[in-house]
């Protein structure tokens, strides 16, 4: 069975785009997303909203093994027209779950110095947000922003520090929790807190 996408595509995808854009513009800030569409298990509706808003036939998608099933693949093809690829290095959007494994950020498309936009976006499904892991600063943040994600460990944050060091190339990360979204673009500086 195919799940319904946005009911009113033009209006709702514009709202979703606005939320995602705000999340990327204000790293670490949590916004509402994905309350108005169905998504096939185990894809969260907020992650589905990201896919349906940002992906199309020109953006190959890679799905983590835990998310990869016939329903999800059919859903992405039907609503977004996006091809699903087996090779993480060729995907523009990657969907994974916190607590599971996914390819190291350094193995994904990083863009080039001439075209830093030719890079991958990693969408991670998480249970929720809990400030305390890291402190973010940089573009879009007035002074500093405490941030934390349930289910992500120190090695993830270390990889993100490395990712920021490669700026202006590197990947961008979007966190999708039930009904919520937050983002960690490559431009953001990350300071790990001692307690992690």
């Amino acid at each position: 069975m195919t799940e319904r996408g946005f009911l009113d595509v033009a209006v709702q995808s514009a709202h979703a785009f606005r939320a995602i854009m705000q999340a990327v513009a204000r790293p670490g800030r949590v916004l509402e997303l994905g309350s108005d569409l169905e998504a096939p298990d185990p894809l969260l509706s907020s992650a589905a909203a990201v896919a349906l808003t940002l992906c199309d036939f020109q953006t190959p998608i890679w799905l983590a093994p835990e998310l990869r099933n016939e329903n999800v693949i059919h859903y992405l093809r039907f609503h977004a027209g996006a091809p699903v690829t087996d090779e993480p290095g060729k995907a523009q959007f990657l969907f994974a779950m916190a607590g599971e494994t996914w390819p190291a950020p350094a193995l994904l498309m990083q863009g080039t110095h001439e075209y830093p936009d030719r890079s991958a976006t990693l969408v991670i499904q998480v249970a929720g947000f809990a400030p305390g892991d890291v402190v973010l600063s940089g573009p879009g943040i007035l002074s500093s922003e405490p941030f934390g994600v349930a289910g992500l460990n120190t090695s993830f944050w270390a990889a993100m520090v490395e990712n920021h060091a490669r700026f202006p190339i590197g990947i961008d990360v979007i966190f999708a929790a039930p009904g919520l979204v937050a983002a960690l673009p490559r431009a953001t500086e990350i300071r790990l807190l001692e307690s992690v």
Partner: protein
Amino acid sequence: MQSQIQTSAGNSRAAWMRVLSQSDWRDLESYAKEVAGTPHDLLRAPETGLVMLRGRMGATGAAFNLGEATVTRCAVRLVDGTEGHAYVMGRNAAHARLAALCDALLQGKDFGTAVSEMVIAPLEAKLQAAHVETSTKAAATKVDFFTMVRGDD
């Protein structure tokens, strides 16, 4: 029992989808009046776009782009999960939606036969009649060319 109509390839679904999409909207609306109230979800609300039509000169040679056609498509889902799809020339969203709904019902056992008899059969008869009329009119203007036998000298 599914619809009786079939394409030459033996695909009855393709055949009824063709009938639904090629029929005049007023005909479909009147024959499918009772179908329209069936509860359903919109998987893909009717949306209008362009498709590129391609052709070959004399059915041979390289394909070229003939021009674009306006097409409206729609996908619906019945309460039992059956999905119906429709692609219709033009911008009539209601036509695409009703055609998709008929497509979904025609796939089911419960109403498939009824919809086939009530909607598809009369629509197909009309299309057939229109086709015959056009062919007859065209046939009446047919000219047979021949070369006169010329004299020997």
